[in-house]
């Protein structure tokens, strides 16, 4: 026991500059997550390594499948049985839903000691808190509104990276005429919803986005701007290849890599796929913000559950501190393609796309155009998000008119809010 303590203290003293008070007993954590694909698994491996370097015991509970649905089912069963994991990969309003059940533990003392309020964007900090206390620690900031492109394919039609949706449409028409699929897309509800929200921000602007997709204002949902958003979405439907139905996002990314398609509109986890394939940003692939002003925020976080075991409570605090530590935020985000949630971390080792992301993030914070993602469970409850996705995916796969879509969307959201 004593030896272990000494060993862990030594390890910390030598490798990681962490507050000594937290480092002396690293404790045990069980982390339930679904970071199981290539880049993600590597990223979570960084956290495990860092935690074990402090002498703690890491129990890994990866539950793959269904974009976290399987993990949620497991989590529900364990919480009901009174045996929750120490920390869980959870996000957005889902955190509040669990907090309302009274099953979350706060890590406010760690947060205060390390001044998290000064390090996180305000929008994100608000999502991590319940009743003013931190119950979760963010590991990264993903930007959703990215366009990825293959420069060699764009060169074939002499096109540049588009900066407005009209330019995008013009380029896409040229590509289509040249027999190239303009847009690589996978027909899964969340991917359809991703296109939808990127257009909502691009066409409607941040004010509209907040009104419609965050505050769920009925007039904004059924109004003329929303009709325009659906019009542009209908245009995009014409730019995807016939086999898009059900395709996974990373297969769509591979289409851009291989030059079978020119663009993909997808969050910066797509960059992880490009990098993992050995592609160089700026040369083999291009990244640009999707047309429009603003920044759609998606962030993964670790949420801390109430555990009774002393050892695990210790581990929770160490994990909270570690999650926000610059070293971890850097190595995790280098592996995952996102940027650190802790905005004080310098981005020297990051690629051009990440630096651009950080720059735009700071501009967006200053201009109050940082908005939470609807499609990625940052803005609204799962129920309302489900209604959004049903409608958007139905629109994308049918010949519903934009007017009907806006009207039905308002009704669907209302139904989702009934509970």
């Amino acid at each position, binding site marked *: 026991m004593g030896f272990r303590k000494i060993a862990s203290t030594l390890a910390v003293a030598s490798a990681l500059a962490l507050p000594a008070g937290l480092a002396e007993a690293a404790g045990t954590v069980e982390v339930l997550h679904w970071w199981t694909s290539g880049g993600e698994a590597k990223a979570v491996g960084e956290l495990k390594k860092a935690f074990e370097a402090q002498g703690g015991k890491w129990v890994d509970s990866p539950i793959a499948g269904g974009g976290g649905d399987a993990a949620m089912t497991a989590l529900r069963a364990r919480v009901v049985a009174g045996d929750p994991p120490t920390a869980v990969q959870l996000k957005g309003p889902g955190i509040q*839903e669990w907090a309302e059940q009274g099953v979350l533990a706060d890590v406010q003392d760690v947060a205060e000691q390390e001044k998290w309020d000064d390090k996180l964007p305000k929008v994100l900090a608000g999502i991590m808190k319940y009743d003013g206390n931190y119950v979760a620690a963010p590991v990264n900031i993903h930007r959703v509104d990215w366009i990825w492109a293959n420069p060699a394919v764009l060169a074939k039609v002499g096109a540049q990276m588009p900066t407005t949706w009209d330019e995008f449409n013009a380029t896409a028409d040229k590509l289509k005429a040249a027999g190239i699929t303009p847009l690589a897309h996978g027909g899964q509800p969340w991917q359809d919803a991703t296109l939808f929200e990127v257009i909502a921000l691009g066409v409607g602007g941040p004010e509209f986005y907040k009104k419609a997709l965050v505050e769920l204002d009925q007039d904004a949902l059924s109004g003329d701007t929303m009709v325009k958003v659906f019009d542009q979405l209908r245009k995009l439907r014409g730019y995807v290849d016939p086999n898009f139905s*059900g395709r996974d996002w990373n297969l769509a990314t591979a289409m851009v890599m291989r030059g079978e398609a020119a663009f993909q509109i997808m969050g910066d986890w797509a960059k992880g796929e490009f990098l993992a394939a050995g592609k160089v940003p700026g040369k083999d692939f291009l990244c640009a913000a999707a047309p429009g002003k603003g920044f759609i925020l998606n962030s993964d976080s670790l949420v801390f559950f109430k555990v009774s075991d002393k050892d695990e409570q210790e581990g929770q605090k160490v994990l909270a501190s570690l999650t926000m530590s610059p070293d971890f935020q850097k190595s995790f985000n280098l592996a995952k393609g996102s940027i650190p949630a802790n905005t004080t971390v310098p981005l020297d080792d990051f690629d051009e796309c990440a630096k651009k992301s950080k720059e735009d993030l700071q501009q967006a914070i200053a201009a109050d155009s940082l908005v939470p993602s609807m499609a990625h469970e940052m803005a609204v409850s*799962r*129920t309302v998000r489900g209604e959004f996705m049903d409608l958007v995916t*139905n629109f994308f*796969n*049918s010949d519903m008119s934009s007017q009907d879509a806006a009207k*039905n969307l308002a009704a669907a959201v209302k139904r989702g809010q*009934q509970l």
Partner: protein
Amino acid sequence: MSASDGRGGAPGLGRRLEAWLPQIVVSPIFALSFFFVYCFIGWTIYISFTKSRMLPVYELAGLLQYERLWATPRWYVALENLFVFGGLFIVGCLVIGLVLAILLDQRIRAEGVLRTIYLYPMALSFIVTGTAWKWILNPGLGIERVAHGLGFENFKFDWLINPDMAIYTIVIAGIWQSSGYVMALFLAGLRSVDDEIIKAAAIDGAGPLRTYAGIVLPMLGPVFLSAIIILTHLAVKSFDLVIALTGGGPGYATDLPATFMYAYAFQRSELGMAAASAVMMLATIMAIMVPYLYSELRGGNR
């Protein structure tokens, strides 16, 4: 006297034990199935009357979840799909199964081998069937591509990704999987028809068509009933086939009530509404099973 009483008592106990033995052996299983099936049915029904979302709550909220369910367009898609899929699946399996059974019943050579071949799909799980058919029907991988490769450039078969036609791909895969089983049922039924009757019909000058339509098929009534019951419940609870073949897509065009329920319970954190849809499914099954059980029990008494 007292000694003989004692001797008389022991076999009495033994005999009583013997009489109760079946009940004693069966009761744990009965208790388990009572708890895990009927209690949970009761629990689900209760939950469907609450506002349960992520975790169950036990405060009653009346018919709210049912009102929301019947106002949801996706639920109507699921129901319509159930009728399209269920109807075509049952009729398709019956027709193909019956034809195969009649053909196999003609005392042909290698019947055993053929029977096994037709029955074999039943040995696969729906997941395997769904995945294989997904590849076969995918325009970029399967039939369409093969046809293009053979030079038929204009050949088009995109049902899998066409929201209006996708449900029929599930019908195709379902029939492929289950018609062999129906064939086996009918074959057993055909074998039980007395040869004498068929010979008598032949002597009376009835042709093969007339013999089957007028004599053999009416005698297969009970087989038809069992086949329909089995196929109906397969159709109503179909889940894995849809998940593997289309994932409910494109969009939610191939949702069935079972996949609808799964999506709401596990992806949308709407336990209450999922429970309401489960109760609707149970009601559908009951509407078919209760008359069947009733007729069976009445038949037993006769």
